[in-house]
């Protein structure tokens, strides 16, 4: 049993406030919540919506059609009514409307009731409760906490509005039939961005450099807010080139550092990435993808930068690329990424996207206590320390400047001590050293995860944020008599051939799977499919893509993978 609610209106109109409030309240009530946001690249006007889906079991995806649409503008009504499900309840903030639409005049009501236009949002939230038939007290409790800082009067006014909203819905006889029963769902709501920020702070990231860019800004902003609590220097760089090089400097000096950006900003960091490869610095970059090329669709989602980030940078060096699939994984992988960067002294990229960055879900509470990663640095380096001692596995002992050793790093080809060299024998040894890290990274590459019946005839393969929608699609198809399972990669580089083949049931003989295999990607060219082919994992597969900027949903995928 689940219900999808869509709050839609203009930017700056309160869609955000209303949606966020509902998410919190539902989670506190014990419902499972999954929310996504859809917005235009503008500050006022346009068409934004907040999808809040609730259920009595865990959710992993949005739904294409909603059961309850709250349209705050005529434009929202016009555009989204057609995308509401069969028999959906449609509320409109106005005084009259077509058949099948309930005109509830939230704004007018709020103005009349408490002389405030803003509190129309609370009326709307109340109406949602009315339609769903949930006890309004849950909302009232929430409003008391949420507005406690604004004074008694504001709290009271909001409560009045909420109750009135619920009444309006009941009066208009808009009650829905079945709604999910509250259960004992986890009560902590996180967005993907919050999970990333929190994980970085807990892992001991002490320096964050970024230039604002949607959809990466949310994680950056979260970290700015946490700077005092966790002790983090958060500096807005003059451009992305600076951000990457500042982070290189900070990691050289010994603190875990992080850079947040999106595709276009990442493009500007590519030279810095290559620098980190040469200097062997644990640079950590989060690229929250959005559709390109160029400026593209700044507020939309996509998985178009996979091949780019894997090859980005001139010259050859080892790297790892991760792509977490869920909010929990965003937390987990952020730490793993930082650890890998430090264990191998090499750059690591984490691919997020607008979908993951903005998705919200209630999950078990994430650790907030600082628990720094191991930087693998020498405590008392010897006097004759050299930075690039060639060792088995390629990872030399790392000392920090300011200690008993001199630490010399150079973007030119260098000798063991880090000094510039033109000796071509040393060159060869240094290339070997740097690239030999690839073997360790390869061995340790995360195995893809498997979901669904082991015996399924059709394997669906995805990476990154597509996890949730695909997982729901697997359940849907199987419930309809299908035989599907999924394989998800939360690390996309290096691809460990053995682990991948095992998960994909690929025969070594001819690189074909014993099952039908379909790749699911939010890009137009099937980049991960190419990668599997290149890695020698899988020679052939089907492909389902989406590249309009919206995330996949379980239902849509279930239709498309029949």
């Amino acid at each position, binding site marked *: 049993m689940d219900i999808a609610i869509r709050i839609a209106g203009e930017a700056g109109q309160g869609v955000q406030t209303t949606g966020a409030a509902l998410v919190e309240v539902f989670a506190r009530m014990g419902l499972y919540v999954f929310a996504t946001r859809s917005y235009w690249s503008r500050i006022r006007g346009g068409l934004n919506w907040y999808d809040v889906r609730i259920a009595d079991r865990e959710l992993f995806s949005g739904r294409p059609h909603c059961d309850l649409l709250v349209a705050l503008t005529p434009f929202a009504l016009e555009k989204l009514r057609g995308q509401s499900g069969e028999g959906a309840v449609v509320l409109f903030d106005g005084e009259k409307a077509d058949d099948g639409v309930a005109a509830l005049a939230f704004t007018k009501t709020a103005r009349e009731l408490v002389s405030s236009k803003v509190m129309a949002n609370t009326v709307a939230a109340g109406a949602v409760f009315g339609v769903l038939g949930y006890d309004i007290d849950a909302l009232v409790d929430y409003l008391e906490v949420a507005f406690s800082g604004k004074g008694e009067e504001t709290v009271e006014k909001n409560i009045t509005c909420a109750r009135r909203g619920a009444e309006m819905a009941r009066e208009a006889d808009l009650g829905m039939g079945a709604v999910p029963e509250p259960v004992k769902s986890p009560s902590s709501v996180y967005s993907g961005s919050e999970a990333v920020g929190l994980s970085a702070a807990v892992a*001991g990231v*002490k*320096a964050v*450099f970024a230039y604002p860019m949607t959809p990466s800004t949310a994680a950056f902003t979260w970290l700015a807010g946490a*700077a*005092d609590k966790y*002790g*983090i*220097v958060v*500096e807005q*760089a*003059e*451009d992305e*080139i*600076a*951000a*990457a*090089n*500042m*982070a*290189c*400097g*900070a*990691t*050289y*000096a*010994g*603190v*875990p*550092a992080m850079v947040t950006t999106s595709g276009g900003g990442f493009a500007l960091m590519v*030279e*810095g990435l290559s*620098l980190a490869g040469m*200097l062997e610095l644990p640079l950590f970059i989060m690229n929250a993808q959005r559709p390109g090329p160029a400026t593209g669709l700044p507020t939309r989602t996509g998985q178009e930068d996979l091949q780019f980030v894997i090859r980005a940078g001139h010259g050859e060096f080892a790297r790892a690329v991760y792509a977490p699939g869920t909010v929990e994984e965003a937390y987990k992988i952020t730490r793993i990424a930082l650890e890998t960067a430090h264990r191998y002294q090499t750059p690591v990229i984490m691919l997020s996207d607008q979908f993951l960055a903005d998705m919200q879900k209630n999950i078990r509470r994430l650790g907030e206590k*600082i628990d*720094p990663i191991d*930087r693998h640095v020498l405590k008392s380096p010897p006097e004759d320390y*050299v930075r690039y001692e060639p060792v088995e596995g390629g990872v030399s002992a790392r000392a*920090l*400047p*300011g*200690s*008993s*050793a*001199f*630490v*010399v*790093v*150079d*973007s*030119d080809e260098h000798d063991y*001590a*880090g*000094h*510039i060299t033109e000796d071509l024998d040393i060159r060869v040894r240094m290339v070997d050293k740097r690239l030999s890290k690839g073997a360790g990274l390869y061995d340790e590459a995360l195995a893809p995860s498997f979901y669904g019946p082991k015996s399924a005839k059709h394997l669906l393969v995805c990476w990154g944020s597509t996890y949730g929608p695909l997982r729901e699609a697997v359940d849907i198809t199987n419930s309809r008599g299908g035989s599907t399972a999924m394989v998800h990669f939360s690390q996309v580089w290096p691809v460990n051939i053995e682990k991948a083949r095992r998960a994909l049931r690929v025969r070594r003989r001819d690189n074909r799977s014993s099952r039908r295999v379909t790749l699911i990607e939010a890009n137009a060219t099937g980049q991960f499919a190419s990668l599997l082919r290149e890695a020698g994992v899988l020679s052939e597969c089907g492909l389902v893509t989406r590249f309009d900027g919206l995330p996949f949903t379980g239902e849509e995928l279930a239709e498309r993978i029949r």
Partner: protein
Amino acid sequence: MTSHHPSKDVAWCPGCGNFPILDVFNDAVSEAGIDRRRLVLVSGIGQAAKLPHYTTGNVFNGLHGRALPAAVGIKLANHSLEVVVTSGDGDMYGEGGNHFLHNLRRNVSLKVFVHNNQVYGLTKGQASPTSDEGFVTSVQRSGVILKPFNPLAAAIIEGASFVARSYAGARDHLKEMMLAAFENDSGFTLLDILQPCVSFNRVNTFKWYSERVRPVDDSHDPYDQAAALELALEWGDRIPIGIIYRSGRAAYESRAKVLSKGTMLEQFERAAHA
């Protein structure tokens, strides 16, 4: 002081203005009593940017144009280090121009020594941002038509803490300026050093500079912005050298709340051992 593997083979041309700068730098570091183990030399790419390899200290020799952001990252991670940036005019003012501009404003305590030879040395003689108008090169065949970039004036306007100019051919003056730079711990410390390039700049030679440089008057008040600007805009028959400007602004490190609890490195290590 034993040298820690400094590159034995110095890649500069005989007679290059970089040699006296290196000499004086070594003197000044000693005289200032700087602990070389706490010294980090940050550079980009170019002839000047090779200096860190020829002396003793920690070295971050990064990308062309990107010495400043790396240096800022280092200083913000561990502001107890003495971070010296050594760069060329192309490196700092050309490719690195945006970082120069905004780090003047950011005012992190870096010692920024720019070997200004008014040419791209390492890439064989193209015009740099500070090349004089009319300067002929293999690319600028009819001579430079861009107005030379004025780093001192930019620094004065945009908030640098300390702005000075010296000359590779005036060792005593240069040492004095370096010592003054080392002493300034309240933000961005720019020392632009006129540096003859004997291979590619046949115009701005030792002779040319020697005939023109003039120490600023003792009466000059570096806190007087208008007077400083006037000096900074002078270029031609007279080229003022000396401390041109001091802003009196507080350094970034002293204003960023989070750094008041110790360096970020200490804060990390405290957390790790808690």
